[in-house]
């Protein structure tokens, strides 16, 4: 049943496309005033969230003085970009992104294959465990690894010295290797999540047919399995590469101390670490990185044109599971090791760090609870905690509502202007958090004084919504796409108005996806650092900013405490999310 419904959507889609081209005028006549007003409002909101900061970036990059001051228009910012230093930063950015994508992809493919196509024991649990690092804020793992791999007092080096008796410290996270290592921490589970469904959803009869035609196991893998996976793998790798370019935490924590500069930290430094701040240079560099990302996205379109993801139906297939025999314990150990290194080590470091008096000195008499007392007595912590929770709740809700509307209009209607809406909602995808932060910094500063957003938590809220919208649109689009048009049309024919249909059918059916997307956006807000660090001011700090401040002040012990609290929150939300997925999404 699900398959035939899908077919009908496909053929209808084609007709709809044709209808769209011809029916413009007639549709306009059928357009009610209410709909036009709603669409206009939506376009204005999206324009404020994407076009506005973008145009402010352009303005800023051509203007000689900081926001709000009299100045002249010139190209000095772009001239500075052409320096040798910036070129090195650019090369570092691309090189690091490449260097982390390749090993991450290899490990992710291996994990996906193990967990989707083999009979490794405890696959269900392992899958939850290996994806966990994706949900832990990178700022936490960065700090934990900063402690673990510290060349002087890091736990790993201490362990090495204790075991071997030598006095050399082999591990130094403040290096290219450290940056790559920390990026992998996040990008491996990210890639795994993107490709595992392609592994799982593949119809085994496609492979069996090749075997029946006389192809060997290896030839089948090469000519069928891999070819079918290729679009999914390429697309995931490019996405991961883009994330690598946008990455801020890893180069900030491990690159900057070793004087390894990338574009995102370059933008941050030129605004926060120089005096006077070099706004024009920062905005010009922001534009350069966006152009770079735009080129990559173009390349992606060109590469993947006409080759879609394998249609994930999720139903009816039992993926061919390979019996590994004794080797299944080896694959089990591989997954378990991944979890231990990526989660247990850093979280364990936070746990240990939070109970000892001084970071790096682990003796029994140094055990203490004073860091917990200090954190819970700190008004700054509570303010950050409150702000993060408030922004998370409001931000995730608003983002999902906005994404739900945009997705509905672009997936389910033939309304005019919906491709514009879709494109505007997608635009922030190409803007790294730090770039969007710079854009909004200018944007808010130039707003009339009657609209006091600058320096308040509403500035952060708007930036979070903008950053989260592309993801929420994607989540809701795929949720709507799974619902056959019949379900909606059936309701209309049987007497329900558009609004009633929305309430009883569409929202009622899509809410589990909404909830899952909501938690994802909430995670995104909780971990966001790069835009927050530019847009916060006293009173509107969020947890990640509080952490960064503590870290910069050398207070690694309290960092551990706050970090642990965040980990607990992450586990809690992830647990709720999995519950919702299990209870509601699998049954639909």
């Amino acid at each position, binding site marked *: 049943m699900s398959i035939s419904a899908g077919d*009908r959507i496909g053929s209808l889609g084609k007709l709809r496309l044709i209808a769209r081209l011809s029916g413009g005028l007639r549709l306009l006549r059928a357009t009610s005033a209410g709909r036009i007003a709603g669409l206009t409002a939506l376009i204005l909101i999206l324009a404020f969230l994407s076009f506005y900061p973008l145009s402010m970036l352009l303005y800023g990059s051509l203007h000689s003085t900081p926001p709000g001051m009299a100045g002249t228009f010139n190209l000095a910012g772009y001239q500075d970009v052409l320096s040798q230093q910036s070129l090195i930063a650019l090369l570092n950015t691309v090189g690091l992104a490449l260097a982390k994508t390749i090993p991450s992809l290899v490990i992710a493919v291996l994990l996906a294959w193990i967990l989707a196509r083999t009979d490794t024991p405890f696959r269900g649990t392992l899958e939850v465990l290996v994806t966990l690092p994706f949900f832990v804020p990178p700022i936490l793992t960065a700090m934990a690894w900063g402690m673990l791999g510290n060349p002087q007092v890091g736990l790993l080096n201490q362990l090495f010295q204790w075991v071997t008796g030598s006095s050399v410290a082999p591990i130094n996270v403040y290096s290219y290797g450290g940056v790559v290592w920390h990026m992998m921490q996040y990008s491996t589970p990210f890639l795994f999540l993107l490709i595992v469904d392609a592994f799982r959803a593949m119809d085994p009869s496609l492979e069996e047919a090749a075997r029946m035609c006389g192809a060997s196991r290896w030839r089948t893998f090469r000519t069928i399995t891999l070819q079918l996976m290729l679009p999914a793998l390429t697309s995931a790798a490019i996405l991961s590469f883009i994330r690598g370019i946008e990455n801020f935490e890893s180069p900030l924590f491990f690159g900057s101390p070793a004087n390894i500069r990338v574009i995102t930290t370059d933008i941050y430094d030129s605004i926060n670490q120089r005096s006077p701040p070099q706004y024009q240079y920062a905005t010009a560099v922001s534009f350069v990185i966006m152009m770079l990302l735009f080129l990559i996205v173009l390349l992606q379109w060109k590469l993947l044109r006409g080759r879609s993801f394998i249609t994930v139906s999720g139903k009816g297939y039992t993926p061919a599971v390979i019996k590994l025999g004794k080797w299944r314990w080896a694959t089990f150990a591989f997954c378990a090791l991944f979890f231990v290194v990526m989660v247990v080590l850093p979280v364990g470091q936070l746990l240990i760090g939070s109970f000892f008096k001084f970071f790096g000195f682990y003796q029994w008499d140094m055990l203490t609870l004073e860091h917990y007392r200090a954190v819970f007595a700190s008004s700054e912590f509570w303010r950050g905690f409150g702000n993060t929770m408030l922004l998370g709740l409001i931000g995730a809700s608003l983002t999902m509502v906005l994404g739900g509307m945009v997705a509905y209009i672009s997936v389910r209607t033939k309304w005019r202007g919906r491709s514009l809406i879709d494109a505007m909602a997608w635009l922030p995808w190409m803007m790294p958090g730090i770039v969007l932060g710079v854009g909004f910094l200018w944007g808010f500063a130039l707003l009339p004084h009657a609209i006091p957003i600058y320096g308040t938590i509403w500035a952060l809220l708007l930036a979070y919504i903008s950053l989260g919208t592309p993801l929420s649109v994607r989540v809701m689009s795929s949720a709507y796409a799974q619902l056959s048009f019949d*379900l909606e*049309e059936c309701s209309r*024919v049987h007497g329900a108005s558009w609004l009633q249909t929305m309430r009883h*059918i569409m929202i009622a*059916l899509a809410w589990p996806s909404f909830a899952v997307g909501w938690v994802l956006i909430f995670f995104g807000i909780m971990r966001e650092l790069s835009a927050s660090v530019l847009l916060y001011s006293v009173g509107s700090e969020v947890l990640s900013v509080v952490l960064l401040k503590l870290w910069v002040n050398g207070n690694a012990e309290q960092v551990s405490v706050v970090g642990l609290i965040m980990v607990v929150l992450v586990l809690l939300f992830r647990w709720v999310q999995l519950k919702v997925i299990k209870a509601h999404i699998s*049954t639909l």
Partner: protein
Amino acid sequence: MSNVVLEKVSRNFGEFVAVSGFDLRVNEGEFVTLLGPSGCGKTTTLRMVAGLEQNSEGRISIGNEVVSDASRGVFVPSERRRLGMVFQSYAIWPHMTVFENVAYPLRVRRRPNAEVQDLVTKTLRLVEMERFAQRPAPALSGGQQQRVAIARALVFEPKVLLLDEPLSNLDAKLRLQMGDEFRAIQRRLGMTTLYVTHDQSEAMALSDRVVVMDRGRIQQVGAPEEIYRYPANRTVAAFFGTPNLLDAEVEACARIDGRRVRLDVVGQGWRGSCEAADEVRPGQAVTIMVRPEDAHLAAVDDNAGERELKWSGRIAQTIFRGATRSIVVETDNGRFNVDAAAFVDYAIGDSVNVIVPQRAAWAVPRDEAAS
């Protein structure tokens, strides 16, 4: 109950004409089937009646109320047309129970709770699903989903019932059973029904009248027997079963009664008489349709009777089909399909005569598309 009238209804998708100049009057209580191959425009026509698609030209009225008139810009939205519809996928809402699915049309019309209870229970009993009322919708089999979909379409006593290939997702046996059940319910309620299918046997078994469509146009409208027996053209003839189509030329023409004429025709190596709907001038080319079940085999020395047609040939193939045996005879006019009794003694290579009564041979104009 209401009638449905479509006048000069057309639908274009850009350059593509899905439905063109569609004229049909469905009377109150009548069961009319739109039949045709996929892409012939039958579903588009049904969706225009439902208001899910807007007609580019023409006028549609339901129960003497104009619901869509392209020239005057009238368009009544789906939910105000008071229709019941069964979708091909059934469109059972997966987040509701069987009861809630069926109650939906009443709930959106804000009927009092007691009435909802009463009507839903009654309708579920009609489709023999009352035991499943509290079952969640995803836990139903295909046949059960179909019953729920029918109950939901009937529950608020709609003006007209629309069905879009409702049986196509069921297996063959269930399809027959549900079709019969459905026809019985429809007769009992006397509901005006518009039904879409690509399955000719379904169309013949269920309908009062069949509308045969092809490439967006009506080919023929009539009772199932009439369309099967007296197709208007080659397309309609070929659509039902696997008829033998023979080319011939008309020699003489005489009227039998108001509906039929007798033609004397000559083909390649044979001549004889057949029937047709309209007079044809001598010398014109026609296509003669002979259904396999109307032909029978005879020994070579057996001559045709006075009112019979005869072709000679050799048996090329015999296929056992259970109730009948399909025999293919290679004649000078090409291959001839004959439905014989299941257990006859013919071997491949036997020489036989194919005998057909004259009144079972039906001539249709030889149209351009056929040549």
